[in-house]
């Protein structure tokens, strides 16, 4: 059995990274030209790493499934990006950002990794500003910040409700700069379908050219996955429809361990489901909870127009339950509280599955213009989708699948258990524990890509300066390509009657009902049984029209859905073994008298790390113990 070595350096927390970094081996500029690196994904993490490695002089090959790297799903992040600049003089610091993330993650993240993410956060903001990212500024010309859930300082930098777009376009510009210089070669419209292992090391990938259907072999000295999360396992989620787990999953099947798969964030403020053909839930940024107040009627099943319900008849349940943080409690707490009210019969809207997010008080106090300046594009988006004007009546919102804290297990170098295979950004598990705080996703992705990976990967590549080009004409590539080709043929030849989207929708419902915001042993077991049945049905009744040597979107979808059955099963396994409630993982069996999550530090202060054991075998669980040296592990209270 492989032993997990997180490679956390010794020494005081605040000095770990700088000491460690100073001792990492380097590759000299002449040798860098002889080294190839593959990066899959062009979000903030992937495109950031590609630009940074290109600047250093490596030969970089970058892959994305979209027609342009600018469309990676980082583009849709709305609210902001955290940094410990302390521009508001509210006593913020790297330590406080670190502490907030550890607490927000419900004490299930690694101290050293989180501290490092906080440490590089200021460099990230400076770099974006230097690249011309138009963060919001105050009248004196300095960068402005705003508050976000789960913290008591104002450290979130933003560009209206389009911070992700602006950060990604900044990163895209640095990527373009390297493409123009010839250090980075861009391969758009490619799906990565397998990772190739040669003599125990990741040495390449198999991709499918989405326009021609051709399978391609790409070799390199190291492979970096920056392929995002697997939140689309719920079908309805805030993610882009192309987001998927397949690249990370192919690595898992090849031996990369997968950590905390059940830790998946349900975002509290998304626009609720409006029709049966909906395939996407649109997020309303968490920043709205700065000024919006969440409420439901005090009377069960009150169907009156919200504006007719008087102040005395409203239950501002977050302010009532969590007076210290009020509407700005972390996402997991806010989501469960909304579900609790709706399940108890107080929900609003036709389905009773939504709550109000009301800006009346903020508009009365600050004026409509101030609110428009801060959230204009979000309000417009809401009106386009629902046909309702949120300036004159409250928004309706409901939780939706959003972000996966779980992901490929990585050590301090961001390397998976396969040597030479790295995972950065959302695709790894390392920084957010059991719940991610708002605006730390952009921060972690950019930190991983621009500032951490480029240093750690050189230490690994230093051994490859004499290796020479990795040939693609060798058995490992042939075999991997054949496996991919067989899988495609298998799906094409089923000739069934049901579409991939239809299977995906059914799969998503099973996951939402059995492995969603609240879980229990019985439900999880039932969910696994249903998943297995559905998977069997999939392989006898999936319908993929057209042929595989062409642009075939149905084939692309079917390949992704096929992997999601396995993702779902592993999520259930993990949720089942974790007999506690922590962060986004809430087990009915483990709650306090007041319905709050009950953590079990004595037995579950570990990372649940899963090893693939073959298609027919149950995966093996490994445990990476979490030791807290610098933070006192406490009950996480926002009251």
């Amino acid at each position, binding site marked *: 059995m492989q032993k997990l070595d997180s490679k956390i350096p010794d020494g005081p927390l605040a000095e770990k990274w700088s000491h460690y970094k100073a001792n990492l081996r380097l590759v000299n500029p002449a040798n860098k030209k002889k080294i190839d690196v593959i990066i899959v994904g062009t979000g903030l993490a992937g495109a950031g790493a590609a630009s940074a490695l290109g600047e250093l002089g490596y030969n970089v090959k970058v892959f994305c499934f979209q027609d342009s790297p600018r469309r990676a799903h980082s583009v849709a992040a709305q609210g902001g990006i955290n940094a410990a600049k302390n521009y508001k003089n509210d006593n913020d610091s790297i330590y406080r950002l670190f502490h907030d993330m550890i607490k927000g993650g419900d004490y299930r993240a690694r101290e050293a990794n989180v501290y490092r993410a906080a440490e590089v956060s200021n460099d990230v903001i400076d770099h974006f500003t230097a*690249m011309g990212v*138009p963060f919001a500024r105050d009248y004196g010309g300095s960068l402005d910040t705003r508050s976000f859930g789960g913290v008591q300082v104002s450290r979130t930098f933003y560009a209206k409700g389009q911070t992700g*777009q*602006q950060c990604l376009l900044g990163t895209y510009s640095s990527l373009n700069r390297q*493409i123009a210089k010839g250090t980075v070669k861009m391969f758009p419209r490619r799906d990565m379908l397998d990772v190739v292992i040669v003599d125990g090391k990741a040495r390449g990938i198999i991709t499918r050219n989405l326009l021609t259907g051709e399978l391609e072999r790409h070799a390199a000295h190291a492979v970096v996955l920056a392929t995002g999360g697997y939140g689309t396992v719920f079908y309805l989620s805030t993610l882009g429809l192309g987001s998927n787990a397949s690249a990370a999953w192919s690595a898992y099947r090849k031996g990369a361990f997968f950590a905390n798969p059940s830790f998946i964030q349900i975002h509290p403020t998304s626009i609720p489901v409006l029709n049966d053909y909906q395939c996407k839930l649109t997020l309303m940024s968490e920043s709205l909870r700065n000024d919006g107040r969440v409420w439901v009627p005090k009377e069960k099943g009150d169907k009156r127009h919200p504006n007719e319900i008087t102040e005395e008849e409203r239950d501002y349940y977050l302010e009532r339950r969590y007076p210290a943080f009020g509407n700005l409690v972390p996402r997991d707490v806010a989501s469960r509280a909304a579900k609790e009210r709706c399940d108890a019969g107080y929900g609003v809207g036709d389905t009773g599955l939504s709550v109000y997010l009301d800006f009346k008080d903020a508009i009365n106090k600050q004026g409509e213009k101030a609110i428009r300046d801060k959230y204009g594009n979000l309000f417009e988006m809401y009106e386009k989708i629902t046909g309702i004007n949120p300036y004159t009546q409250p928004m309706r919102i409901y939780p939706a699948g959003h972000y996966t804290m779980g992901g490929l297990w990585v050590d301090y170098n961001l390397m998976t258990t396969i040597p030479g295979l790295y995972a950065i950004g959302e695709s790894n598990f390392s920084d957010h524990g059991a719940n991610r705080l708002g605006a730390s996703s952009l921060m972690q992705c950019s930190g991983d890509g621009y500032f951490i990976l480029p240093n750690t990967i050189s230490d690994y590549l230093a051994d490859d300066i004499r290796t020479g080009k990795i040939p693609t004409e060798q058995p490992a590539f042939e075999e991997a390509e054949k496996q991919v080709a067989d899988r495609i043929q298998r799906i094409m030849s089923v000739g069934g009657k049901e579409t991939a989207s239809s299977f995906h929708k059914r799969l998503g419902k099973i996951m939402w009902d059995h492995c969603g915001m609240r879980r229990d042993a019985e439900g999880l077991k039932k969910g696994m049984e249903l998943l297995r049945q559905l998977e069997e049905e999939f392989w006898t009744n999936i319908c993929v029209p057209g042929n595989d040597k062409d642009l075939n979107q149905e084939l692309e979808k079917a390949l992704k859905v096929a992997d999601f059955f396995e993702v779902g099963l592993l999520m259930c396994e993990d949720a089942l073994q974790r007999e506690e409630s922590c962060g986004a993982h809430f087990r009915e069996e483990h709650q306090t008298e007041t319905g709050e999550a009950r953590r079990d530090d004595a037995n579950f202060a570990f990372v649940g790390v899963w090893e693939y054991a073959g298609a027919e075998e149950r995966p093996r669980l490994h445990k990476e113990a979490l030791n807290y040296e610098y933070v006192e592990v406490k009950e996480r209270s926002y009251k």
Partner: protein
Amino acid sequence: MEFKLKIWRQKNARTKGSFQTYPLKDVSPEMSFLEMLDYLNKQLIEQGQEPVTFEHDCREGICGSCGLFINGRPHGPQRNTTTCELHMREFRDGETIVIEPWRSKAFPVIKDLVVDRSSFERIMQAGGFVNVNVGCAPESNSNPIGKLIADKVFDAAACIGCGACVAACKNSSAMLYAAAKIAQYAMIPQGKVEAKERVDTMVKQMDAEGFGFCSNTYACEFDCPKGISTDFIALMNREFFSSKLCSQRHG
């Protein structure tokens, strides 16, 4: 609701395309335009026909993937709205809806409603960036930028690269697309250093890709889903002429 859909079908770049008509019943006014097409595709697949291929991803108006020419307008009838944000309640019950891909020489059709926008990539690669390496950045607040300018920079930077401006223009001009990026950097100290070279190389690339000139019809601004102003084209032209008058280019 029910509709008659006239959709451009084209097998690939080498074959000729044509309009096909599909009647569609039981459409909900709550559906987005793309959900309506999903619904059509589900029926086509179940009837053993090839579904309509179109691009999409985020479905919330920010990634810029989708872009259909609907009833003669890029992204359809609603202003400041991408195709994915458009909802069927904006159409009349029983209406015939004509759906085409972007039409421009610089955006060749790949299949059905999908076009090749890689010409846009090459314009950005020609100079749509600030030459700054990781690690070179000064402290963020060392270069103050007034709020009014910062807000204007944001307005220019809001472009999603969908190509609606080109599709709207009778000359297939990409001036608004290029100008938005050029203006974003020309207005801030970080971008000013290389402003002259940038406008020169990006405009040159734009011409090389076969995009047309601007004849001031403002159709691009009118149909831009992010409402990007043609003022930026004026700014780009000023930058362009000044780069010619007082060249700082090396060599």
